[in-house]
C-alpha cells in the first residue's frame, strides 16, 4: 500500500479530529485515505460506490457517539438509522438494508437499551428499510458513554443521476432543505451544562423521500448532494468549493435559522453555519432544474422551508463567501475543532 503521501503531523488525536471540521479533514486526508485508498485521488463522499454484478451499489457506515443518548426530538438509535440512510441518499441511492452494531457500556439499563433498539427499528421501518443484521459488544463500566452505535447501509444507485463535485458548474444553484442548527443546538442544550433551555428539537429524519422526489423531478440537473452534519453547512460547502474548485456565494439572509437556534448561537458566540444538522441536505442543481427542484421540495411535508441559499461561481476558487444586503462580504471558513462556547 502506498503510504508516501501520509501527511499528518499532529502527535496525537484530540476531540477536534472527530468534530467534522478542518482537523477531521486533515486526519482523513492526511492519514486515513493515503493508507486505505493509496494513490487514488479521493473524493470523500457520504457513501462509496461498489460495482456488483453490473449493479452500482452505495455502501456506507457511520458511528454515532452522541451524549446524551436521548434529546428532544430524537435519540442515538434514531440518529444512527437516519444518518446512514441519509448518507446513502446523498449518494443518490435507494437504501436497501442496514446492519447495526452496538457497543454497550456495562451497566446500561435494559430499558435504555430497549428504547434505543425500538428507536432503531422504528426509524428503519419508517423509511421502509430492513435491519438485516447486527453485532453487540459490551465494554467495561465507565467506557462508551452508555452506548455507541455503528450503522452500515447499502443502497442501489439510481442510474439517472451522477452525483459528484466534479459535475458542479458555475451558475448552479445551492438549495438547502430547511432550517439549520436544530440538531447541534438541541443536543448542546440537552447536556444541561450550559443551563440553557429552549423549545427546540433535533431535526433528525431520513431525507431519502426528498431525494427520491428530487430524482424523479430533476434528475438531469442534480449535481451534488451533502448532508451538513458535523461541521455544519459551512464545512460541507467549503469541502464542495475545494473539491470542485469553485466559489460558493451565499445569500446569508436566505438561510433559514430558527430564532432559538440563533439566540443560543448569539449567547454562546457560535455560528449557526458551523452547527450540526441531522435531517437537512444541501443540493447543487443546474439552473434549469433549480425551480422545479425547489418546488418539489416545498410541496412535501417537512420541505416547506427549503430555500435557494446561494450559487456557484467560477471565482474565487475554493472559497465560500457570504454577501450581505448592504454590501458586506465575509469569508465562511470550515469549522476549526469543536464549536466551543465563548465569552469574548
Amino acid at each position, binding site marked *: 500500500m502506498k503510504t508516501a503521501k501520509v501527511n499528518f503531523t499532529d502527535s496525537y488525536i484530540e476531540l477536534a479530529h472527530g468534530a467534522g471540521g478542518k482537523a477531521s479533514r486533515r486526519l482523513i486526508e492526511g492519514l486515513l485515505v493515503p493508507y486505505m485508498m493509496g494513490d487514488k485521488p479521493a473524493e470523500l463522499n457520504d457513501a462509496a460506490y461498489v460495482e456488483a454484478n453490473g449493479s452500482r451499489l452505495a455502501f456506507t457506515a457511520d458511528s454515532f457517539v452522541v451524549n446524551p443518548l436521548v434529546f428532544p426530538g430524537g435519540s442515538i438509535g434514531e440518529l444512527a438509522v437516519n444518518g446512514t440512510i441519509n448518507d446513502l441518499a446523498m449518494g443518490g441511492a435507494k437504501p436497501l438494508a442496514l446492519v447495526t452494531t452496538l457497543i454497550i457500556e456495562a451497566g446500561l439499563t435494559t430499558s435504555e437499551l430497549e428504547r434505543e433498539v425500538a428507536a432503531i427499528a422504528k426509524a428503519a421501518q419508517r423509511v421502509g428499510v430492513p435491519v438485516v443484521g447486527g453485532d453487540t459488544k459490551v465494554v467495561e463500566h465507565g467506557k462508551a458513554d452508555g452506548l455507541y452505535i455503528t450503522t452500515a447501509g447499502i443502497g442501489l444507485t439510481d442510474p439517472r443521476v451522477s452525483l459528484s463535485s466534479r459535475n458542479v458548474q458555475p451558475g448552479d444553484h445551492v438549495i438547502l432543505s430547511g432550517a439549520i442548527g436544530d440538531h447541534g443546538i438541541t443536543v448542546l*442544550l440537552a447536556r444541561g451544562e450550559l443551563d*440553557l433551555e429552549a*423549545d427546540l428539537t433535533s431535526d433528525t429524519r431520513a431525507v431519502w423521500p426528498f431525494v427520491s422526489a428530487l430524482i424523479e423531478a430533476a434528475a438531469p440537473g442534480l449535481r451534488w448532494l451533502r448532508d451538513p452534519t458535523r461541521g455544519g453547512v459551512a464545512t460541507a460547502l467549503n469541502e464542495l468549493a475545494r473539491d470542485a474548485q469553485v466559489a460558493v456565494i451565499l445569500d446569508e439572509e436566505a438561510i433559514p435559522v430558527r*430564532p*432559538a437556534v440563533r*439566540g*443560543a448561537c*448569539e*449567547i454562546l458566540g457560535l455560528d449557526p453555519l458551523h452547527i450540526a444538522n441531522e435531517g437537512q441536505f444541501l443540493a447543487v442543481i443546474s439552473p434549469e432544474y433549480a425551480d422545479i427542484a425547489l418546488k418539489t421540495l416545498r410541496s412535501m411535508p417537512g420541505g416547506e422551508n427549503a430555500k435557494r441559499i446561494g450559487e456557484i461561481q467560477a471565482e474565487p476558487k475554493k472559497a465560500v463567501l457570504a454577501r450581505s444586503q448592504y454590501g458586506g462580504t465575509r469569508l465562511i471558513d470550515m469549522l476549526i475543532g469543536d464549536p466551543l462556547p465563548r*465569552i469574548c
Partner: protein
Amino acid sequence: MCLAIPGQIVEMLDGDRHYAVVNVCGVRRKINIDLLKNEHLLLGDWVLIHVGFAMSKISEEQANEQLNLLSMLNESDEAIEEVQGYQFDNEKV
C-alpha cells in the same frame, strides 16, 4: 472583548432573589442579577447578559433615539448636528 447579549426578563425568581430568568429569542437561562440590584428590575425589562450575569439594563429610549437620529441622516442637517452633539445624557442635562 466581552460577548454580551440582550435578553428580556421573563421571570423573577422569588425563591432566590439573586436570580431571574431571561429570554433570548426563545432561549431561557437563569442569570444572576446581583450586579443590577440598584436598578429595580421588573418583568419585561431588557438586560445585557455576560457570563451568566446581567451587566446592564438596556434603555429603550436611548435605543430609539439613536435609530431616529440615524434615520434622519442625510435627510436633514439637524440630524447631523445631533449626531455630532450626541454625548452623555448627564452632560446635556
